[in-house]
């Protein structure tokens, strides 16, 4: 077995009396798309927060590419190639689409203590940003203000922001949230294309998308991972069916 790119061991977080994640173990192998599913309140959001560094775990360890990143700051994790998208669109709404993505490029091209030159005329920032926008299907929308884009476009831009940091691994927090049927199809196609070149941890509610894309699936319930395996195994797992798919099973 190859060494995992992302290695989570015994990750625990309590909020008051509630244990939001309870000894989570998870390993994501290089090149795989690993989906995390679970009912609301299962602790998926807390898990994402701990992986990105926004929430400090009470116990446990997060390893990324052989390095212990458990206590690393948010920005430092991004610098090491671990990029996350946001469930609720989190963009620079008073900037244009191109400015948004160019900032993500800028974050990974040296420090930004440059006070004089016009950053909007730097080809080294603008060109990769344009390419990334084209890649997610937003070519021709570069100069549109984010605040006047549609929700579907916001979701595409979310992905572009993540890709522009040239990551080794993506943490995607419900990229399908709120998308219409057509937009969903497009998003699944985009994620499928990304899957061939990047390792992805996908937290998602949309089961169609998960089973269409995932190489492996982990199921979280009440802060614990109750099962981990290939989609077919998960589908067949009795515990999962009971805890999570129970309702459909009973009908």
């Amino acid at each position, binding site marked *: 077995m190859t060494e995992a790119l992302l290695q989570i061991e015994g990750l625990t977080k309590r909020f008051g009396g509630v244990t939001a994640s309870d000894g989570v173990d998870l390993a994501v192998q290089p090149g795989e798309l690993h989906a995390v599913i679970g009912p609301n309140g299962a602790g998926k959001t807390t898990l994402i927060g701990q992986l990105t560094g926004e929430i400090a775990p009470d116990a446990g360890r997060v390893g990324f590419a052989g390095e212990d990143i458990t206590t690393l700051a948010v920005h430092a994790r991004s610098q090491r190639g671990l990029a*996350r998208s946001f469930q609720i669109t989190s963009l620079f709404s008073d900037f244009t689409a191109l400015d948004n993505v160019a900032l993500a490029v*800028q*974050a*990974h091209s040296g420090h930004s203590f*440059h006070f004089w030159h016009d950053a909007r005329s730097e080809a080294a920032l603008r060109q990769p940003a344009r390419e990334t926008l084209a890649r997610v299907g937003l070519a021709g929308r570069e100069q549109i203000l984010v605040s006047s884009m549609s929700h579907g476009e916001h979701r595409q831009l979310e992905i572009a*922001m993540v890709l522009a*940091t040239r990551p080794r691994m993506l943490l995607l927090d419900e990229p399908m949230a709120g998308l219409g049927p057509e937009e969903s199809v497009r998003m699944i196609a985009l994620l499928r294309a990304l899957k061939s070149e990047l390792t992805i941890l996908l937290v998602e509610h949309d089961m169609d998308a998960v089973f269409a894309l995932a190489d492996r699936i982990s199921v979280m319930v009440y802060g614990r991972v109750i099962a981990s395996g290939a989609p077919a195994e998960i589908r067949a797992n009795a515990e999962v069916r009971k805890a999570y798919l129970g309702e459909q099973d009973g009908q």
Partner: protein
Amino acid sequence: MSAWFTPRNVVVAVLLAFLALVPVYSALTGNAFLMTLFTRIVILAMAATSLNLILGYGGMVSFGHAVYLGIGGYAIGILAHEGIGSGFVQWPIAIGASALFALGVGALSLRTRGLYFIMITLAFAQLVYYFGVGLDRYGADDGLQLYRRSQFADPINLSNRTQFYYGCFVLLVASIYLTWRIVNSRFGLVIQGARSNDRRMQAIGFPTYRYRLICFVIAGTMCGLAGVLLANHTEFVSPAMMHWTRSGDLIVMVVLGGMASTFGPLIGAVTLLVLEEVLPVLIKLVATPIVGSAATRAAEYWQIVMGPLFLLVVLFARGGINGLLVSLRRD
């Protein structure tokens, strides 16, 4: 060419031309008051420009920005009082002290957000204000007279009022230009990104704290320089320079002119300070036909109009005058 010919740009051009001609007008008419008033306006416009960098572009609502006027001013006053009159010594010390203070305050206050940030910047300003009040050796509450303006080598002579005015004017234009360069640079985009969505900035890999801190220091330093000029202009420093209402005035200038706009703080400073002079006259003019000689008394209470005016600007002209001028073009 026509892209430049907008109402806003015309107003800015006229304003700059007017400011450049104030000494000429003053010399021709012998109106010294106008010169004094506009020297003050130019200096405070510079302070407002520096505040705009953190408040408008950086989203850092500092409610203690006038403290740098005080630090810059007191550095000059104290050094002059101790017999050090050379501007070559005074100015670097004053500017350095402002930068250092901004570094300390910024390092602490930028750890907090929202109302906490507003109040901690206010509290630090109060701290220095009371420190000034306690400076017994340097006039305490009553302030300190400056017997001589900063001494530079020939041909620079700050006691020459025309020269001093143009010096301030050039520094104002330079600080507006510098701010404009900064906000469009890589650094400036980081600052604006952090205003818009700090969480996202960190997620894409920016250690935003240090960028915001450096921005805070730049603004404090620039305002410290304005304090240096103000002390030289009034030839007097006192704790009142950094009273909390002065910080409020600076915020008013920035918002009134238009936050996060290049010339907004200048427009705001001119508007506010000219209004302070004109409003009493205006009230008298309007009130005289109605209440007769009581109008002179009524004019003393011009702030009763000014206060609600701020509220109206907040409610109905959020983009300030700059925003109004820009929207004129769309009609």
